[in-house]
């Protein structure tokens, strides 16, 4: 680079290089160095973390349903989840997104009611509803949508509560 050469070339015009400064470490600097050691150990440990406290919390982990989901959805790498599950302890709706934590299953998460509109070919829609009747209704809606949009739809009823749906190519 030209700038580099400009920095070093006019050495004749440079001021003489002053002698080295005699810097010394204060006690505080020694304390900082001492604390660097446990920090390095902790950093080394942290790089291989495995457990996600959010997922491991019972509030966030409805084990059986998701294990079933993982078993049935193995091989799916792009999916959309819908859920109406309520956490009884806090009376709040569980995030549909939490299913995303199951490794390797999904990469895309969308929400009702935009989900049908955005469903691409090859993407999976996985519905998990506490009430099987509601799931029946959603499957019927999905089939109607397929007819309206002239898209082939496939529904795989995994369990009473869970169904995996797919849509064919857009016309």
């Amino acid at each position, binding site marked *: 680079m*030209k*700038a580099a050469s*400009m*920095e070093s070339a*006019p050495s004749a*015009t*440079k*001021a*003489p*290089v*002053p*002698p*080295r*400064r*005699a*810097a010394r470490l*204060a006690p*505080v*600097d020694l*304390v*900082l*160095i001492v*604390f*660097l050691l*446990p*920090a*390095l*150990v*902790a*950093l*080394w*440990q*942290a*790089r*291989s*973390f*495995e*457990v*996600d*406290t*959010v*997922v*491991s*919390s019972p*509030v966030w982990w409805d084990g059986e349903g998701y294990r079933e989901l993982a078993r049935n959805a193995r091989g799916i790498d792009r999916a959309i989840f819908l859920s109406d599950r309520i956490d009884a*302890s806090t009376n709040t*709706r569980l*995030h*549909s*997104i*939490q299913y*995303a*934590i199951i*490794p390797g299953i999904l990469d*895309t*998460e*969308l*929400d009702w009611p*935009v989900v049908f509109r*955005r469903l691409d070919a090859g993407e999976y829609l996985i519905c998990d509803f506490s009430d099987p009747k509601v799931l029946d209704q959603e499957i019927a809606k999905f089939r109607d949508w397929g007819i309206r949009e002239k898209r082939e739809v496939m529904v795989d009823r995994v369990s009473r509560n869970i169904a995996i749906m797919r849509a064919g190519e857009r016309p």
Partner: protein
Amino acid sequence: MSAFLVVQALVLGGGLLIAATAYAQPGARFWVTLRAALPFAPGLGFGLLSALWFLGLDLAQSPPRGLFVLGSFFLVAGLATLPKREFPPDPGSPRASGTALAARAIFFATLLFGLWCFLDAVRARPGGGFDSMAIWNYAARFLARAGADYRGLILELDPAHHMDYPLLMSATTAAFWTLAGQEGHGAQHLIQASFVVGLPLLMRRLLRGFVGTIRADLGGALVATLPQVLIWSSRQYADLALAYFILAGAGGLASRLSARAVERPPLLLTGFMLAAAIWTKNEGQPLVIILLLGFILLRFRDGPALRVGKELVRLFLGALPILAAFVLFKLGWAPRNDLMAGIEGKFAESISRPDRWHKVAEAFGAEAWPFTPGPSAEDPWPSFRRWGGFWPLIGILATVGLAYRRLRLERHEIFLWLVSFGGAAGWFMVYVLTPNDQDWHLATSLNRLLLQIAPTILFTMLVTVSPRRELEAGAEAPVQEVGPT
């Protein structure tokens, strides 16, 4: 990945060029200016990219691709011509001592080690963590796929995804995907890696004038080795970016309040960083309010009102591009913040229950105490593995600093203590008032919220234990290479 790397190079190069232009002053050498501007490159690059991206969607209904083509042209032209400008010869600077060289070696070694650990952690979890899937990457997909339609969709989405959160990370990711022509987590990895490197560089740069180069190197190394930085960056959360912007804002404003001959980042740049903090996360808003209030109060105490007014105008002008995007997003796009809506209904009840205060105090204590037992089902991440002794160090530095100084702090130090205390107290109250399940909220986010202010607290303590007389009497002179005074 290579397409992401090209986008990354252009964005960081653009950020560096703009920061260098802001830093440039008559007599400053090119490489010295570039080095001073380097820590600000990620903040400027990603902040500007996300704001322009969003403004394009809002105002023109499409991502401003043409603008980026034009920007790339100016970037290449700027980089090609800037080094050809006339720069004065090197005036000669004192040669670093062996101790200073050793400290520098420690800094760069820990920086590389931190980056290596980050890459290792990313390989173990390439998809990120819970919030990145639920919030940041979720919004990024909508922005990238739906474009301007996002405006209509955002209110239909589940509030659990916090669609009111600002868009610095999401819009930056969406912009990467669109410019690269592909989606993938490589974009988020590169963005986070920039902050993993940028935060220690920024800490070191801002500290130099206040504490000397040796202590600045050690301070930067302590940030580079902070496990929380690794954990939340590899999970693609926005908290590290917010920590970076808050430190940039606090350091920039502190340098203006200081009577010492320290390097002073341009006010335009500091204003931009403050705005980027509120554009990164909602938590940035109260932190920036604390920063600005502290600055204004202390500045007006002894500065002429006209000069202070001019400084505030410059801060505002720097903040303008991002502020425009933020205001348009909050007023025209985002739903109401669910946390605030929940707090209003339960405010009196929450604040009057001692058990809620006690629980938060206990959680803060548990976070700070490093010697918790090994992993358990309840707490798989004891605080040592999260913080590596960071908080005990802060306690030691605070005690030593205040005892040494006999509480006679300089103006910029009062400001920094105000910001550090204000931030911690603010987060304490958030957990007292939270409308969510308090146990769950504390367990899942306190450590991240503390990360947002941890670098600024370390900065505060290192400045406090480095009084002016020690620097003047000791071996190291304060460093001021560039930057307007």
